[in-house]
Each structure stands twice: as C-alpha cells, then as structure tokens.
C-alpha cells in the first residue's frame, strides 16, 4: 500500500516536472516574439491616431503614467505617449476609459494635438453589443472618425454630446448609451489634457522605467 502511494507520487511528480519544463521552454522561446508583437500592435494603433510622418521620436519609450479617476475614468494608471518632431511636442496620445458603456468599460486611445484639437480617437477594447454598440470600431463603421479635428472650449461646451442630447455627434440606431459614453470620455480626456498639458510634456520620466 505504502509502496503504491510512493510510486504514484513519484510518477505524478515526474510528469509535473516534465510538463512544466515543456511549458517553460515554449514560453522562453516565444517571449521575445510576444513582446515584439505587443509593441508593434501598440505602435500601429498609435500611428493611426498620430500620422507617423508628423513625428520622429520613439513613441514607445516616450511615455508616462498619469492617473485621474474623475477625468480619465479609472482608478488605474493610464498612459500618455508624447509625439515629438525634433524634440518639439506635436501631440499627446492618452489612454482613457469610458466607465459607463452598455457593457462595462470601454478603453480608448485619445490623441490630442498641442493646440488642443483632436488628432484621432480609437477604441482599444470594449464589450458592447455586437451589431449595435460595436459601431465604435473602425472595422464596423466610420463613426469614430467624426472626432478628428474637433476642439473643446470648456466643461460646459454643449456641442460635446450626441445629437439626441443636443450635441454634434450621431448616435446609433438602437444604441445611444455606447456613443454617449465614448463622447463623454473623450470630452473628459480633452479637459484633462487642457489642464495638465504642461506637466505631461515637461515630465521626462519614461513609463518604461528609464530616463531619457
């Protein structure tokens, strides 16, 4: 009996070690590719909202963490990527969250030019209803391009709402909550940027943990 238990334990341990070794090996071999893929994915999204010919710095490194629950929609740190041409800042891309989507958080990337106009907006991640709320994706509809070149005066700017609420942005047939949440989040991000522009641009600590 005791021998059987010992034997079984040995066999189990052996298989556990072998399986772990296999997984570690594959993980080690794919680690660099995965990191590169994630970086590429991020860069290609950043280049969609800030045209690559406008900048010549390393966007991936030139970033910092910012946090503001009221304006950026989350108690988690968000990231600001600073786009520069020959060290002169041209735009800042900020990740932010619309916490009031139809199905929870909608993660956004909002790029704002230094003159305060929008350079572009993209949805990074969402769980909105397929076929209704997912028109915020560029694959499904051109809606999100409406944000390009828009500006904002102040917090009481009435244009920053969906048309149903008297603003300048279309809602979708059958889905008002989603576009309303996105419009609000973009508006708040712009207000945040207007208040903190100097801090964001002058801060030189990189979010990758190195100094410039």
């Amino acid at each position, binding site marked *: 009996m005791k021998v059987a238990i010992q*034997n079984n334990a040995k*066999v189990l341990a052996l298989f556990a070690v072998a*399986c772990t070794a296999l997984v570690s090996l594959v*993980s080690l071999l*794919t680690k660099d590719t995965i990191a590169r*893929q994630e970086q590429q994915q991020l860069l290609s999204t950043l280049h969609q909202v800030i045209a690559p010919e406008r900048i010549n710095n390393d966007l991936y490194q030139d970033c910092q963490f910012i946090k503001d629950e009221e304006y950026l929609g989350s108690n988690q740190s968000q990231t600001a990527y600073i786009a520069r041409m020959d060290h002169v800042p041209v735009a800042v891309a900020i990740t932010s969250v619309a916490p009031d989507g139809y199905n929870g958080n909608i993660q956004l990337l909002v790029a704002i030019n230094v003159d305060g106009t929008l350079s572009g907006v993209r949805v990074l991640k969402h769980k909105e209803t397929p*076929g209704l709320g997912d028109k915020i994706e560029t694959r499904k509809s051109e809606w999100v391009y409406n944000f390009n070149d828009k500006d904002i005066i102040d917090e009481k700017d009435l244009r920053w709402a969906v048309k149903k609420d008297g603003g300048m942005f279309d809602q979708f047939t059958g889905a008002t909550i989603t576009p309303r949440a996105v419009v609000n989040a973009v508006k708040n991000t712009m207000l945040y940027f207007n208040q903190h522009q100097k801090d964001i641009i002058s801060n030189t600590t990189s979010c990758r943990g190195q100094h410039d």
Partner: protein
Amino acid sequence: MTERSEYKELSWQGLWKNNPGLVQLLGLCPLLAVTTTLTNAIGLGLATLLVLVCSNATISAIRQWVPKEVRIPIFVLIIAAFVTCVQLLMNAFTFGLYQSLGIFLPLIVTNCAIIGRAEAYASKNPVKPASFDGLMMGVGFALVLMTLGAIREILGQGTLFDGAELLLGEWASILRIEIFTSDTSFLLAILPPGAFIAMGFLIAAKNAIDSSIAAKQPKAEAKTIERVRVNFEG
C-alpha cells in the same frame, strides 16, 4: 485489411457517427461562444485539433508507465501543458486572432472531448491509431465549428472570412466575401441564443439524415453488404 477497417471506423466515428460536437455534445462552451465568425471558428478548431492530436499521441505513448489510480491528473497535466504551449504560440504568431479568441483558448483544457478521447481511446491503444483518432475527432469538431461559424457569420453580417487576416496574415484580407450588405445586422445570429438555435438545427439535420439512411437500409441490406466488400478489396 483489419488495420484499414480500424482506421476507416475511426474516421467514421470522429467525423460523423460519434462527432464530438454534434453527438457527444462535448465542448459546447467554446463551440457556441466563439463561432461568431468563420475565422474565429477555424482558429479555435485548429487549436483544438492540435491539442487533441498531441495529447492523444503522448498519452498513448506513456500508457504503460501511468498507474491506473493517478491517470486522470496526469492526463489533465499533459493536456494543460499542450494548451498552454498552443496559447503561447498563437500569442506569438497570430496575435490578432489570439486577442479575438480571448478566454476561450485556455478553456480548451476544459473541453471534455479531449480528456474523453484520452480516457476512452488513447490510454488503451497504440500511438498510431490514437493519433489518428485525435486527428479525426479534432477534424470532426473543427468542421462543426466551421459550419456553425459560417452560418452565423452569413446571417449576422452577410460576410464570409471577415478578419481572415488575423489568422493568416495581411494577404488574407482578400479572402473576405461580402454576400450582402445591410445596415441593421441580424443580431440574433451573432448573440449566444442564435448559436443555440443554429446548433439545434445542425443536430436536427444530422439526425434527419441518419434516420433517412436507416429507413432505406433494411431493404437494401443483403445487396449492399456484398458491394461494400468488393469496394474494400478493390
């Protein structure tokens, strides 16, 4: 002759008679959840197929050394290891698809079809037929996934192969077929209830085909047996 009929029986079992998706109804969670587009269905189908073949082959190869009492934890370990490897590889080489399959990739571990085949077949048979069984069961499962994915994508968005570039690289975006365009998509097909309804129709269709074959069978039985044997040897 006997070996060939064994493989033929395995194919028949995996692809039709004992299909993991339509008959055993195993792995319903990923089956219904990711089949919103054909591309997703192909991605998950291939991942499951790969895991099934690898786990069946490994389990069959080690079957002499595994004590009966601890076989289930060992099977689970092996399957989980393969799933994690597939997940890492897909994350590295098909990044977009990895993101759209999301949580359902690690959930392959819980797909009962895999541990079911390990226990019922691979642990009792040599490596070659066990791998073949994994292949056929995997193909059977993938075919159901793809049929369901194609039906739901056509009904829901009027396209086929939407997002194929996520799986196959940039060139594949030309594969996308627009069958019809409509502003309001047929929501039911994309949402989970649509998956259940479409699945129900698929099972019904399979049963209808089976019973119509069975209805014809008794009369022709004596003759067909003769003919089948001739086919075998020819």
